[in-house]
Structure formats: structure tokens, C-alpha cells
């Protein structure tokens, strides 16, 4: 089903979305430290094609910790944590790390992971990607620091995993596709987007059994045709002893593997059945006489061996088992039967036995996730719960208990500059590129900014931010126009790379302080609505400004500077000369 192109997925997803509006929404939040925007439509489509009204919500860029508080009420959360971007450029910078730097990073990230574990402890289901160094390190023989960090973080996740979390081993997805097809390095260096659309299609296919199982959409019964599906040959012609069904016969080995794989499914509670055009006595004789047949008659719960059409037989099977037709997977070697059943009963998943028999086990394995039972795997986890409980207790002590503590642990340093001429190109660029955290979205050229820097009545504040692992560069600014004792905030913006850290509050505090010191009494400000800046619509209200005028797209505010109460963000140390 994921053979669809991206545009086809977008169109189908919109169509299904409209069709399913009356179904209860299934809300999935995706938290990530890289750009994964294409994942939304692909996952939605994958689940909507199973009649689930999936609605995917993407968290803010690089805000996994903060968003884990915000989105804990979702029906499902996917934590898409990317190793290479834990710190900007980690995949090459880590090679220079000494042991102390490596440990400091691991301590920081495990602290974040344990906080995320705690915040999402009551979410119904959480998928978390296993960290992978594969994309960057597939050719080195010896592990390097990047591999070591990867291993240690994965060990921490495995040892401390809460029972509602499931680890997604993305190495498997990458291996299936090849590294080359999984990533698109053009967007990685320019836009912090690592994975390709092919990867997101494969990822969605890989994880969807979890959601399908939770929503009761897993397959429940596996129904086999007999001749050339359960064994090689035609029992009515080749005879009971002539068919090949075990490793003792030339072509039997593939079938023996199929028998054992279906036994594996039977152990998990999947019903095994037969639906075949054959003489019933012949088939019974195979079970009775062929002692090398690793599938046993008592393991088969339902049998329709007759000369009726297979669609009818499958309908009867579903009704006798009291399950829906959409719970059946049917295997057959004949194109005629496969097409007939697919067209008559589109709800049934029909699998054609491949002509190349050596591919049969592979095809079979690729269908096994359809039967995935999520609650069972949660039960299995309880086996190891004894030693895990001890670990979790330790975990609670080690972690910070709230977001405030977390932000403290980052050791944020905010450097604020006023009218800094060397930043001119960056200032112009920020006004041109910033869409989301931007109160007025005014675009300025370098020439215009240069003019303001020299007009004597404009103050351009800018900031660069740093935490204990490195800098984010110049990522925010504000342009203030001053006239006598009055001033107006013309522009206030911040790159989305640094949101979620309360930097904007510390920045505004500093600006207002500076204006007060230069004798300004009245400050006005504006919010101009665009399609992209909804998240800052209430920024000035929350900062204590009062609304003077409000139209459909613009809000005008004022503030008596003497009344301003600085928020004094304690977790950020501010440097402003």
C-alpha cells in the first residue's frame, strides 16, 4: 500500500480525512529534534486507510522535553529522537570529545530521557526510536565516540523503559531500504531534515501495527489453501507421499519454514485454518500419514476443504469464528483465486504465494506484523519487571522533577547586543526568514536595517543564546522606534530553534529595562496575524501589556513602562553591556 507517491498520499489522506470526520479522532503527537514534517500525512494516511480517524500533531522543532509535558494526553506519542542532532553536528564533533565531554552529554540526554519517561508515563502508548549511528558510521570497523554515545543512550533507554513505551528499532527500517534511500543529505545540512520520504513511508508501515492492535484492527486468523501453498505438489495427483512438505524433500524446506512460522503465530493466539478446493479425505490423509509434516491437525481450528467457491468458504469461516472478514489473512498460490477473493471480499487480506519459492518465507514474514498483538508484548515485559522496578526507583531520584529544573540544567546564557553593526546581514536575514515566532512579520533588507542603525532613533536589540553544550548563534531580535519619551516595538522575533526555553521573556525584560533607563515612559506594540504566527497571538497579553485596539488581523497594545513587572527568568543568565 505504500507504493503510493507522496502526492497520492497527500490527496488520499485528505479524501479519507473528510470521509472519517464522524469517527472518533485518534490523536498522535510526534516529538522530534529534527525536521520530520512529512511524517504527518504518511502516518495519518496509513491509519486512515484502516478507517482510523488519525490526526497527527507535530511538536515544535527540538522541543521534545517541553512537548512531552504538553502532549501527554494524546492517544499515542512518537518520540523521534535523532542521535546526530542531539547537539548541532554531533556526528562529527563527537570525534573530538574526551571522556568528560562524552559523559556530560550522556548525563544531559539521559536526564532528558528520564524526564520524558516521567511526563509520558500515563499516555496510553508511546513509541520511542532507538538511537542509531548507522547513517554516519556504516563503514568504520572500530566503534568511535559517536557509536559509544549511541550505545550508552540505548542501554539507558532499554534498562529504564516504562511499560507503556515501545522501542522502535529504526536500524531495521534503514536496513530494509538501504542507507542511501533512507536519508536525503541535501536537506540535512540546509534544513535539519535527515530522512527521505521513502523512509517515512517505511517507518509508518513499521510502526502502524502498534496502533492497529490497540484499536482492535489486528488480523486474527490465518487461512491457507493446501496444494502449492501448504506443500509443494497437488495431493490429488501426486499422492500423499508424492507431495513435498519437509526438509526431507527437495522443495519441502520452504514449506517446513512456513509451517513453523505459522506455529509461532498460533502460539500468540492466531487461529490457523484451511480453505482449499480438494477432496477432504486426501487432505486429512496428509495430516494422518505424513509424520514429517511439522504442522499438526490439532493445530488447525477451522477447515473448509470442499469444492465451493473460496469467497463463500471464507465468509463461513469468519462467521463461524465470529470475527470480521477484515480479521482474515488468506494465502493461495493461484492468480485466479487471489483475484477472485480480492474482488469479492476486499476486506480480506489476500497474499499470493510467490513463484520463486525461496521468497515464500520472506513474503510470509513481511505479513506477520499484521497479526501483531500489542497487549501481549506488554505482558511479556512484566517478566522482567522485577529488576526493572529497582532501576526505575533509581531513575526517579536521578531526574529533575519539573521543566524549571530542566531549564536550569541547560545553563542557558543569553548575550544581548544593541545596534551591533557587524550583525547587519544576520539581522536582515532573520526579519526575512522568521515566520512563526514573529509578532509583526516585517521584512527588511540590509539597506533598510543599515538606515535604521544610523537614524539615531531606532534601537535594534539582538541576542545570541548558548547552553552548556554549545551556541545557537544570533537567533532573535527586536526593533524599537523611539520618539521622545515614547517608543514602539516595530519588530519582535525569534528563530524557532530556541523556542520553549523562556528566552523571549528574558529578552523582553532586558529591552524594557533598557528603555526605562533611557527615560521612555510609554511603549506601544502590535501583533499582526499571519497564517504562521498563531503561537504568539497572546504574547503581549501574557507579558502584561493592555489591548488598545483590536481588528480582525491586528492587535495594538500599550504599556506604561513604570507598571511593567519583570518576570526575572532565573534559569537564564543575561549578559547585556
Amino acid at each position, binding site marked *: 500500500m505504500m507504493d503510493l*507517491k*507522496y*502526492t497520492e498520499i*497527500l*490527496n488520499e489522506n*485528505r479524501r479519507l480525512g473528510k470521509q472519517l470526520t464522524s469517527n472518533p479522532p485518534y490523536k498522535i503527537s510526534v516529538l522530534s529534534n529534527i*525536521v520530520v*514534517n*512529512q511524517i504527518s500525512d504518511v502516518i495519518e494516511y496509513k491509519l486512515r486507510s484502516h478507517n482510523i480517524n488519525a490526526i497527527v500533531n507535530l511538536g515544535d522543532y527540538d522541543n521534545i522535553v517541553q512537548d512531552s509535558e504538553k502532549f501527554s494526553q494524546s492517544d499515542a506519542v512518537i518520540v523521534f529522537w535523532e542521535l546526530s542532532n542531539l547537539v548541532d553536528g554531533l556526528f562529527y564533533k563527537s570525534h573530538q570529545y574526551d571522556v568528560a565531554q562524552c559523559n556530560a552529554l550522556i548525563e544531559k540526554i539521559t536526564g532528558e530521557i528520564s524526564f520524558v519517561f516521567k511526563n509520558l508515563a500515563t499516555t496510553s502508548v508511546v513509541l520511542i526510536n532507538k538511537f542509531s549511528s548507522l547513517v554516519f558510521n556504516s563503514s568504520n570497523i572500530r566503534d568511535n565516540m559517536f557509536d559509544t554515545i549511541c550505545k550508552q543512550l540505548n542501554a539507558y533507554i532499554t534498562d529504564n523503559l516504562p511499560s507503556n513505551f515501545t522501542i522502535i528499532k529504526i536500524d531495521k527500517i534503514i536496513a530494509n531500504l538501504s542507507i542511501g534511500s533512507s536519508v*536525503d543529505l*541535501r*536537506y540535512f545540512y*540546509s*534544513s535539519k*531534515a535527515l530522512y*527521505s*520520504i521513502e523512509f517515512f513511508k517505511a517507518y509508518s508501515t513499521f510502526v502502524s501495527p502498534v496502533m492497529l492492535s490497540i484499536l482492535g484492527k489486528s488480523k486474527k486468523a490465518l487461512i491457507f489453501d493446501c496444494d502449492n501453498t501448504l506443500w509443494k505438489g497437488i495431493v490429488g495427483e501426486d499422492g500423499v507421499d508424492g507431495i513435498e512438505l519437509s526438509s526431507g524433500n527437495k522443495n519441502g524446506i520452504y514449506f517446513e519454514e512456513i509451517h513453523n512460522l505459522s506455529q509461532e503465530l498460533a502460539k500468540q493466539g492466531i487461529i490457523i485454518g484451511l480453505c482449499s478446493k480438494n477432496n477432504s479425505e486426501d487432505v486429512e490423509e496428509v495430516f494422518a500419514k505424513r509424520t514429517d509434516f511439522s504442522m499438526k491437525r490439532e493445530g488447525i481450528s477451522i477447515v473448509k476443504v470442499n469444492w465451493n467457491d473460496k469467497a463463500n468458504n471464507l465468509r463461513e469461516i469468519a462467521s463461524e469464528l465470529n470475527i470480521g472478514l477484515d480479521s482474515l489473512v488468506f494465502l493461495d498460490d493461484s492468480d485466479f483465486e487471489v483475484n477472485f477473493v480480492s474482488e469479492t471480499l476486499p476486506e480480506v487480506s489476500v497474499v499470493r504465494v510467490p513463484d520463486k519459492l525461496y521468497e515464500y518465507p520472506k513474503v510470509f514474514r513481511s505479513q506477520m506484523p499484521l497479526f501483531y498483538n500489542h497487549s501481549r508484548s506488554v505482558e511479556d515485559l512484566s517478566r522482567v519487571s522485577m529488576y526493572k522496578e529497582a532501576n526505575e526507583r533509581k531513575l526517579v531520584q536521578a531526574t529533575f522533577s519539573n521543566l524549571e529544573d530542566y531549564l536550569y540544567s541547560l545553563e542557558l546564557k543569553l548575550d544581548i547586543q544593541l545596534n551591533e553593526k557587524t550583525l547587519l546581514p544576520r539581522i536582515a536575514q532573520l526579519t526575512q*526568514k522568521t*515566520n512563526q515566532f514573529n509578532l509583526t512579520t516585517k521584512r527588511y533588507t540590509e539597506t533598510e536595517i543599515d538606515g535604521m542603525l544610523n537614524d539615531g532613533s531606532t534601537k535594534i536589540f539582538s541576542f545570541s543564546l548558548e547552553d552548556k553544550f554549545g551556541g545557537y548563534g544570533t537567533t532573535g531580535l527586536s526593533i524599537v522606534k523611539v520618539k521622545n519619551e515614547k517608543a514602539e516595538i516595530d519588530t519582535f522575533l525569534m528563530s524557532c530553534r530556541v523556542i520553549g526555553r523562556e528566552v523571549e521573556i528574558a529578552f523582553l525584560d532586558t529591552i524594557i529595562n533598557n528603555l526605562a533607563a533611557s527615560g521612555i515612559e510609554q511603549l506601544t506594540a502590535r501583533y499582526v496575524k*499571519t*497564517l*504562521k504566527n498563531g503561537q504568539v497571538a497572546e504574547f503581549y497579553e501574557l507579558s502584561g501589556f493592555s489591548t488598545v485596539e483590536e481588528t480582525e488581523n491586528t492587535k495594538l497594545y500599550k504599556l506604561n513602562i513604570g507598571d511593567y513587572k519583570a518576570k526575572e527568568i532565573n534559569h537564564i543568565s543575561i549578559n547585556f553591556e
Partner: protein
Amino acid sequence: MDEKIKSVMATVFGMDVSEINENSSPDVIEEWDSLNHMNLIVALEEEFGVEFSEDQIASMLNYKLIKLTLEEL
């Protein structure tokens, strides 16, 4: 080719094909932000079976330039 380009653009930006014309660019289509530009490139590459260079991607910022780039390939 014109219709195919327009249809891809309409799909990515969630618009009707009739709303896409010669003057379509990020200035007139609010949905055409940097993320959607990336989505548009991915969609065009799949649709036309091509791969654009970084420079081409950066320059394909209106309907005409997209068409021109595809014709040159």
C-alpha cells in the same frame, strides 16, 4: 507537463489546481513556507523521476522557474 506541475503544487499546498497560475510564488501563496518548499521538491522529484541540485532547489521559487528547471533537466 504544465498540468502535472500545477497539480503537484496544488496537492502540496492544499489548494485547487485552478488557483495555481503563472504568478504562483511564496509571495502569493501563504502555505509556501520553507517546510512546504521541501515537500514540494520531494513531490516533484517523485512525480518526474528527477533529482534537483541544491542550487536548483533554492531557485525554484515560482511556477515559471519550476517549469524552466524541469525543462532543462
